[in-house]
């Protein structure tokens, strides 16, 4: 069905179910319970799950398949964000032109940046992409923000002002991002017992786009083009002496992943019409690398898991503060309570990156294949398959789910 084999179709169905039922799945605790702070079923967090899922799925097409590690993909995320806000400023708050332009602009920039960066491979490629992204950041932050020519609005960030033309904005349309009149921030709340489930228009639009983006990535993985990208990663020498030109293959992968990043950036602006230069900074580029590796580079579902994992824990850990810790540990004797809080304090709130770093180290050391490998190991434990009869020869050769 849909040109997919059974295993891939199952995977797509899993992602669809997870995405469409996320308001339930991510909201397991009643609103008034103490555990409610571990819920993740809020519109803005769910939006970030799927948007960064798109970013990581696209990044994986480059890094997971070809092995080229870009440290500059946040540049395309930022370009997408600015493009989308510009469409809001010039045309209207309808998100469609903005999202389309964000993909196109990111595509154009990735042709140029990819063409130059791909002249080198390995660490030199990574450094070139990093340099380009930092240049883009600097340009967006200051160069393109001056009274004479203000494309990015510098430090404040690009946003829509009442004085903007908005040529196509009709009086009846919502005065905030919308999809043909349906406001992105419209949220329906369903109360069942102690639970409040929130269904947000913006989230569902992003979720559907993410499912499509994921479907496209499955098709790419299984296509002859995808096979060539995996060949690039495996042995470029063999490729060129087999009559294949590796350059256009890697460039195409770079552009596709850049366009995914642009799409993600456009969606960020569609959810919240404010684009800042910090979206292009190297930390943002590093984050998508972490997501992909944490989830499982080169696997289909890994990047989605990685994005969800990082965004979830970012939200949880950065929300916890000392007051919450005091509540948790209040049953303990005072001395012990203070001691525990002192220990935990650096890892929460603004210190959340420390936790992320530790988690990343654990995964890379103990699960080099990422969360997907973890899942496979757990699956294997339950299956209790008879020992490998082929003496380990029949290692799986297709990218795992």
């Amino acid at each position, binding site marked *: 069905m849909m*040109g997919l*084999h059974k295993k891939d179709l199952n995977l797509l169905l899993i992602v669809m179910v997870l995405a469409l039922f996320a308001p339930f799945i991510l909201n397991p605790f009643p609103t008034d319970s103490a555990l409610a702070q571990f819920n993740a079923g809020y519109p803005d967090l769910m939006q970030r799950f799927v948007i960064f899922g798109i970013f990581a799925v696209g990044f994986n097409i480059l890094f997971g398949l070809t092995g080229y590690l870009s440290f500059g993909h946040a540049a395309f995320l930022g370009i997408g964000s600015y493009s989308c806000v510009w469409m809001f400023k010039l045309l209207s708050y309808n998100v469609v032109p903005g999202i389309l332009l964000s993909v196109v602009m990111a595509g154009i920039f990735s042709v140029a940046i990819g063409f130059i960066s791909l002249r080198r491979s390995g660490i030199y490629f990574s450094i070139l992409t990093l340099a380009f992204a930092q240049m883009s950041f600097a340009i967006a932050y200051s160069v393109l923000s001056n009274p004479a020519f203000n494309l990015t609005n510098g430090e404040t960030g690009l946003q829509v002002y009442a004085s903007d033309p908005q040529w196509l904005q009709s009086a009846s349309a919502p005065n905030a991002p919308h999809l043909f009149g349906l406001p992105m921030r419209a949220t329906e709340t369903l109360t069942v017992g102690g639970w409040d489930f929130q269904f947000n228009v913006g989230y569902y639009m992003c979720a559907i786009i993410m499912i499509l983006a994921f479907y496209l990535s499955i*098709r*790419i993985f*299984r*296509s*002859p*083009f*995808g*096979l*060539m990208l*995996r*060949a690039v*990663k*495996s*042995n470029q*020498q*063999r*490729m*060129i*002496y*087999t*009559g*294949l*030109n590796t350059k*256009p*293959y890697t460039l*195409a992968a770079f552009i*596709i992943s850049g366009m995914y990043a642009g799409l993600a950036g456009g969606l960020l602006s569609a959810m919240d019409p404010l684009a800042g230069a910090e979206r292009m900074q190297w930390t943002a580029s590093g984050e998508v690398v972490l997501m992909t590796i944490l989830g499982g580079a080169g696997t289909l579902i890994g990047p989605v898991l990685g994005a969800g994992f990082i965004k979830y824990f970012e939200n949880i850990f950065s929300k916890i503060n000392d007051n919450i810790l005091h509540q948790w540990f209040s049953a303990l004797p005072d001395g012990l309570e203070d001691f525990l809080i002192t220990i935990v304090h650096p890892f929460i709130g603004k210190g959340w990156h420390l936790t992320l770093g530790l988690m990343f180290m654990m995964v890379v050391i103990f699960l080099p294949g990422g969360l997907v490998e973890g899942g496979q190991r757990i699956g294997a434990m339950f299956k209790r398959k008879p020992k490998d009869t*082929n003496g*380990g*020869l*029949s*290692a*799986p*050769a*297709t990218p795992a789910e």
Partner: protein
Amino acid sequence: MGILEVKNVNKRFGGLQALGDVNLDIQENTVHAIIGPNGAGKSTLLNCLIGKLEPDTGSVTFDGQPVLGLKPHQINQLGISRVFQTPEIFSDLSVLENVLIPCFAKRDGSFRMNAIGTVGNETDVMSTAEKMLDDVNMLDKKDVLSGALSRGDKRRLEMAMCLVQEPKLLLLDEPTAGMARADTNNTIELLKEIKASRDITMVIIEHDMHVVFSLAQRITVLAQGRPLVEDTPEKIKGHPKVKEAYLGETAA
């Protein structure tokens, strides 16, 4: 005029003259062996033919067309495939995928953006690849990760990857090194069959004289980067210069 003409090719590595005034004229549809002691420059010569190295001087003409200056993938697309001395395969991919890639390269050229099709549904390419694997007796291993193969199997796989492209000129750099005797004989048989079944020219570098004398119609002896003699296998066997430079060593 032969299908491959090498004229006055010189190649230096620093102070080392790896190739000195090499002239070769390889006739279409023959098997031409190049033999010579270690370090004679045999692999270097092949490197100059496939665009891996640029000779310092000289010219290489394939099928009437100058080859020097072309990119390696362009040279391959002209119809030259090479089996390397140390196997060059896609070790992260399955055996079948390794053979599919050259099939796609032959059918679609050096680049084609086919991102929506599914590899498994490309029936023509699939059946060509599986037939090739069957010919080299590796069909039962088609789903094995190729990096996990034995050294002999890797060589056989690489040979299959080259043969499936149906090249006009096949360059084989010690194709049976590291193979068990039985596999060596299978390889000889396979190459004989291929040779009999279609138009193909082969240049084979080999230390195993059994392989050389089973296959070659002409032999060039290379020593210290220079062609010493070129003749038929019978003549080469008895040639005093050859005995001295090469066969003498192995016979001793």
